[in-house]
């Protein structure tokens, strides 16, 4: 068992555990922050897998993203602290079955598929950043730009949906 496997197990286990906690805990803030730490652990997994830029990016983005989730939970839940005995689950059996089937299905594929030889040499972190830059602003520029445009559109659309509807001036 190499060091990489060990750390993958540790961080992966943390990510999964926090992921489960998200749906176990009754406190909404806790569940949002559990998701945050799950994502952080995933970022750490990236670091273990030597994708440094992506790992740091994941860790950075998810901290703010999930904090925003936390405040929305507090805003929209009747019982954000989880002190009352509110039940917030439904169709438990179906969900559990679907989750387990999904897990075991994916696991079976991961274990039984023939993945072929594993690469050993990878570009070092600085080189990766450089190559990624060339990729983003070279061959894949169109895709990258469309992603940017998409997020802009989503921002505007979400704001438009969320702002209180104003009375439109009637046409003369």
């Amino acid at each position: 068992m190499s060091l990489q496997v060990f750390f993958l197990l540790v961080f992966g286990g943390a990510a999964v555990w926090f992921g489960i906690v998200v749906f176990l805990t009754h406190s909404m803030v806790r569940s949002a922050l559990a998701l945050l730490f799950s994502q952080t652990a995933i970022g750490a997994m990236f670091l273990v897998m030597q994708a440094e830029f992506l790992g740091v990016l994941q860790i950075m983005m998810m901290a703010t993203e999930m904090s925003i989730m936390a405040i929305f939970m507090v805003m929209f839940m009747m019982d954000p602290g989880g002190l009352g005995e509110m039940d917030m689950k439904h169709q438990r059996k179906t969900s559990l079955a679907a989750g387990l089937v999904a897990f075991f299905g994916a696991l079976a594929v991961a274990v039984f598929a023939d993945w072929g030889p594993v690469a050993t040499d990878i570009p070092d972190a600085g080189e990766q950043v450089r190559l990624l830059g060339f990729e983003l602003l070279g061959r894949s520029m169109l895709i990258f730009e469309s992603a940017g445009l998409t997020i802009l559109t989503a921002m505007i659309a979400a704001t438009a949906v969320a702002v209180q509807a104003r009375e439109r001036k009637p046409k003369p």
Partner: protein
Amino acid sequence: MSALFVAIFAPVLASFAVLLLRRHAGIIAVAGAGVAAVASAVLLAQAFSGAAATELILPGLPTYPLRLEASALTSALSMMVATVALFVLIFAVGYMKKDPEKPRFFATMLMFIAAMQMLVLSADWILLLAAWELIGVSSYLLIGFWHGKSGVAGSAMRAFIYTRSADLGLYIAAFLLIGVAGTSDISTSLATSGTAATLAGLLLLVAAMGKSAQVPLNDWLQRAMAGPTPVSALLHSATLVAAGAILLIRVAPMLPPSTLLVVGLVGGVTTVVTGLIALGEKDLKRLLAASTSSQYGLMLLAIGVGAPIVALLHLITHAAIKSGLFMGAGVFQHARGSTLMDDVAGAGRAHKRVFAGFVLAALALAGIPPLAGFFSKDAIIAATLYAPAGAGLLPLALAGTVLTGAYMARAMAQLWRGKGEAAAPSQALRWMGIGMAGPVVLAIILGAGFPALERLLGAEVATSALAAAMGLGAAGLGLVLGWFLPPAHLLGALLPWAQNGFAIAGGMDGLVARPVLALATALNRFETWLFNAVIKLGHASLRLGRASRISDEAGIDRAIFSFARRTVASGERARKLQSGLIHRQLAITIIATGILAAALFAAPLFY
């Protein structure tokens, strides 16, 4: 390169400027269109001077760059678009004078024009598809411009859906051609032959039929009259409707004879059917709309007999003429507040100068020398005459010509006969007059430019005295008939049918929408029947149970009860599938995905 860029981006920039400034919208729009027109003129001049086709390659997908190209053909088309657009916008300055939402109107118009320029100048399928979509969207926005009025949103939606459903043909054809040719370049992919070419040709024909409003997809065009008149003038002459014909003109070299024959037949049938519709029409603008379909039918016919250049000539002529006619109709509408034939009766007497322009354009469309329409229509008839498949198509072409004369004469007669009350000339009317004068002048003089254009495009256009005589005779006959006889006499028993838009078995609505509705009704009835049956069964079993209780058989009783109850419950459960609850739908989605994945994994086992 630069002119190419300017031709497309001048309208885009003007559009943004209009949206940002929100004032002087008309002037900015006209300036933008003017700059684009100058750029197009530069392109055309380059083409005339014999320079090689200018090309602009933009980075797109890695192996499929986006190409713009100004060859002789595309620059001529670009010039046409730019010119008509310029005049229409000038007209619109007057027409939209009182509208409170001018910026929106002009910005959308400019986007429309830019999209059309892009479509015309694009040299690869991907860009063409993008432009095609943009045209669809902006025409939807423009037709639905007065969305507050009742019925307008519906007709905009109808235009969008009709053209969209036909667009599927373009998508499949484009991807087919890209797949076969291995490149998205249009001119390279035209070398495709064999089954792929036939299939792609037919699919492209479907797309063109949708956009150019050919039978049986012609209904939306007449309903699209709900938009402002400048929109109609632009839509019918140089942009939306023209896109279909332009597409076919561009791919004509690829089409095998069998496909060409189909194209010709569709065009021929359309020109006659929609001509009859136009003759029976009660509304001036709808008459013009039907005539647009009819004229595009003639163009498809010309493509079908293997003379795409002739079709192009007629396209250009028609663009000038039809925009002029629509602007004339717009003036009459402005004066009378309606476009119903009975309402505009005599409007021509009141606006003599506008009427003169209208008459000139109408005569040009009918094909009276020396106006431009004569030359192009003559060329179509000549091409049909000498084509191998001409024997079948020639009567259709001639009938189309007669009908053109007849309905134009009818429109003119209606406008002239009746009481004329002059309205006070206004500032708005002046702008509209200027806008209209341009196309009318073009309609008169364009014929002189045809020989040069033919040389530029390198095509031999057949001429013959016989064809000229036949065309002239047909046009004259049509004009005389239309002027002196009311449509009821001309059409006879066909009149109500024609007024109904020749809704063959209910038209497109009948062919698609009504069967679907009928199917739904039938299913509903079946369901009700089933439900009733179940209930009856339940009742019956209850009765049976009651009867059986007498015979003291409690076991059967319970079984029957539970059977009835379970039947009802299973119905209830089936209803729950359509609960509208997100989590249920999500669960169904995930389960279905799982089944699909399982099927994918299982598939190799069975091969």
